[in-house]
């Protein structure tokens, strides 16, 4: 299988459908989606809540098998793999970065990274320290998560994701719990990892700032990827939203779009405060 540029994609999903339940109560979370992520690129998956982003991520992350379609990660067909092999595939081939950092509280930074290292890599604290140093955490090697800032925790999470040198990094709202400065710093780090280490980085996010580092952006809505979607940033909650059908107002000769009426109402109360942030 090959991506559009002739490079073998790290993640390749073809005609993937995921349906929960059966009969009248069946809900289709993903419908016949095609997706690929190549080494060195950062792909943003955006879309409204309930669009199927989490289902997409869990299928791409070998946590869930689709109802139909094909999913390949680093050349391994996840559909054909036995359920008992999926944990090893996740551990060896995929790095996860979660919204809530998800570090183990009883382990320090080095131990959190060492934990996931495969036995074949010896669970080496040396490599863990190397990765943490690379993340600028050389002074935090022995720190417990409770003593780390949000940005530091997320960098430990990145080091953990890279522990087994996987080709694919899946990130779920990685900047959601970070302030603007930390968020930007983290974003650039992800970009650097993708380019310098030739990893495919797939990010599910609502954060419009991430567009800055994206090689591609795909819009997931109602279980399918849509093309040519015009988007705007909600100036109140900063979410990226599809323009079509969104509540909107005109202010100072500019049109502003909102994810919901409540954001629109907030804007209406203090337009000066929000006007410089969206559009």
């Amino acid at each position, binding site marked *: 299988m090959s991506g559009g540029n002739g490079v073998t994609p790290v993640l390749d999903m073809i005609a993937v459908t995921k349906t929960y339940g059966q009969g009248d109560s069946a809900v289709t979370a993903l419908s016949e989606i095609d997706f690929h992520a190549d080494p060195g690129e950062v792909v943003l998956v955006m879309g409204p809540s309930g669009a199927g982003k989490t289902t997409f991520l*869990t299928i791409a992350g070998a946590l*869930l098998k689709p109802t139909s379609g094909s999913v390949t990660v680093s050349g391994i067909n996840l559909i054909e793999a036995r359920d008992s092999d999926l*944990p090893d595939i996740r*551990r060896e081939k995929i790095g*996860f970065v*979660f919204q809530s950092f*998800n570090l*183990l509280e*009883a382990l320090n930074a080095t131990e959190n990274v060492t934990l996931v290292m495969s036995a074949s890599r010896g669970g080496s604290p040396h490599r863990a320290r190397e990765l943490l140093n690379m993340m600028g955490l050389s002074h935090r090697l022995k720190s417990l998560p409770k003593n780390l800032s949000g940005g530091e925790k997320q960098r430990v999470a990145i080091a953990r994701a890279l522990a087994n040198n996987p080709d694919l990094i899946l990130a779920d709202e990685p900047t959601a719990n970070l302030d603007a400065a930390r968020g930007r710093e983290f974003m650039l780090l992800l970009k650097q990892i993708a380019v310098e280490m030739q990893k495919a980085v797939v990010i599910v996010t609502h954060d419009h700032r991430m567009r800055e580092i994206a090689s591609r952006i795909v819009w997931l809505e109602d279980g399918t990827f849509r093309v040519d979607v015009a988007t705007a940033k909600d100036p109140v909650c900063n979410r990226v939203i599809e323009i079509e059908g969104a509540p909107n107002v005109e202010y100072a000769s500019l049109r502003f779009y909102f994810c919901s009426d409540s954001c629109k109402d907030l804007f209406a109360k203090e337009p000066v405060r929000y006007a410089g942030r969206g559009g």
Partner: protein
Amino acid sequence: MLLVARKNLFSERTRLAISVGGVALSVFLISLLLSLYRGWDEKVGGYVEQANVDIWVGSTGTRDFLSAASIVPLDQTATLNNIPEIKVWAPIIVRPVQGIKVKFPERTDKDAEGEKMDMHFVGYDTEKNIGGPIKVIEGKDKPGPGEVIIDKALAKRYDVHLNDIISAGGTRWTVAGISEGGDFVVSQTVFVSLTDAQATLRMPNQATFIGIQLADGVNPDEFTAETEKQIPQAVAFTRVEFAAATRDIILGNILPILLVVLVLAFIVGLAVSGLTIYTATIEKGREYGIIKAVGFKNSYLYRLVFEQAIVTGAIGFIIGVGLTLSFGSFASSQVPQFVTLVHWQDLLAVLGATIVMSLLAGYVPVRRLAAIDPVEAFKA
């Protein structure tokens, strides 16, 4: 040990202390009760087992040494002299009596007497030396007229010393020796000469038991029936049988109670360690989900929980056994009836029970772990 198991366990010291405390308490109770049982078992049957008597003969209906109401007329025992398999035999008189330590020997009034003591008078033939003290550790090795040799447990319990005077059976006796091996826990032996015992207990030409020593090579098991034929209305026991029956009288009633307490102690330990391990697992449910999400199998999580349970059990076992050893010796020094004997076989059994306890404590949370969905890790 797995890194996460160790870290999880020791990062929450209070929970660990509660869990270990529960197991330690359980181990302490179980091993203390077992050692108490062993101690009593050894004491209660010890005299009968160690006395130089191969066959004990009592009147029909006799079942054990302590509660014997046996009376053997000595004019019916002469035939024993003609049996070549018998090396030597002698009458033994045994009666439970209440003695009193005399505080002021020079006085005869009631106020001269001190604490009352439960004891077993044992009158034996000091010449043939059958049924006498197992080992004399102080003073004379045979009681003379008006003299007694008392067991050291009695001496310690009632603070009786050599040359003290005790009153028993309406007679005053001088403590001429102190022996060991005659402690039945509920009472202790006081040895007097057969002549003195017959006179004091008004049992002329009678005995409670006949003690028989067999010639070399004679099997006691095969000779009891022959003995019963020789003495009318008699029943004969080997020393092993008689010791077992005596133990059964004291311990037979205690054993069911002991078993109930042992089971309760096990349940207490299981409940405390099980609950703490269960709550710890539930609280860390999200972390276990993360561990699954990043590529670990259920089997790894099971190991985590079982290792935590086993380590908790091991620490609890060590502390519990330590408590048993230290408390057992302390309690014995304060309360003479608190006789403990720690057997390594019992400790092994308690260790086994602790391992079972730990595995059971880990079993319920492990089932919960299997149901954790790694997708939970994606929830904020």
